């Protein structure tokens, strides 16, 4: 999947924005510091993935799941991330539930051919990028998520 080394970089604009939001206003971040943080973030992803994978292997599972990532944070001594991550997970699950309900609603609406179709479509376009992945991942989710 990663064909060029740049594929392992995270987008600089997003990284810069996250740093700026975290630091007090008006702090100057050198270009070198930005690219160093960006590299560090990629290494963090790999390190977290490898730790999480160890937990999945211990559990004799092939698919990494949310609890593996949380366990990895503990192991890596980033316990401080666990509470905000759990909150994010809750929010994500609510969002997914909302989407599911919305798409069920859409199906019903389609049958009735009501006007609300237009609205739903514009919302869909927003999520297009994720949708492919969701479908591909759905199987896994169904097996592992609801516990």
């Amino acid at each position: 999947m990663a064909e060029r080394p740049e594929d392992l970089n995270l987008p600089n604009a997003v990284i810069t924005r996250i740093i700026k939001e975290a630091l007090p206003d008006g702090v100057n971040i050198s270009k070198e510091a930005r690219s160093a943080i960006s590299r560090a973030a990629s290494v963090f992803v790999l390190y977290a993935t490898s730790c999480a994978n160890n937990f999945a292997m211990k559990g004799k599972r092939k698919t990494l799941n949310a609890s593996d990532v949380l366990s990895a944070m503990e192991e890596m001594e980033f316990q401080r991330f666990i509470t905000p991550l759990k909150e994010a997970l809750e929010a994500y699950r609510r969002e997914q539930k909302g989407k599911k309900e919305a798409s069920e609603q859409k199906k019903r609406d389609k049958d009735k051919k009501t006007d609300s179709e237009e609205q739903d479509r514009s919302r869909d376009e927003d999520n297009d990028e994720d949708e492919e992945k969701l479908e591909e991942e759905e199987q896994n989710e169904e097996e592992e998520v609801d516990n």
Partner: protein
Amino acid sequence: MADVAVGKDKCGEQRLVSLPLSRIRVIMKSSPEVSSINQEALVLTAKATELFVQYLATYSYRHGSGKERKALTYSDLANTAEESETFQFLADILPKKILASKYLKMLKEKREDDEANDGEESDDDEAES
């Protein structure tokens, strides 16, 4: 492409994660032992990476030298990697920089040491360096 996952969504609410999930997935999958990742694990890893970037930046700024100048520099980050146990895993990719002149001086001193020792034990060089 990056635009898709950046910033706020239409309702003006903050998105759950701002880093692009597709890119995070590519990085995760570049690890050979990983076979598959479910969507929740992907979202959590992306979120964790954001928290990590925030933490690394604020930690380095607070412990760094640039507070009066309101600046975050590479050497602040390299210091963090060297001094904090949690950030130790970054030491290899955030090495401390030294000036070329300092390095040349170190080399010169080493050479002089070696020469001084040359008379007595000539094959000790490797062990000492």
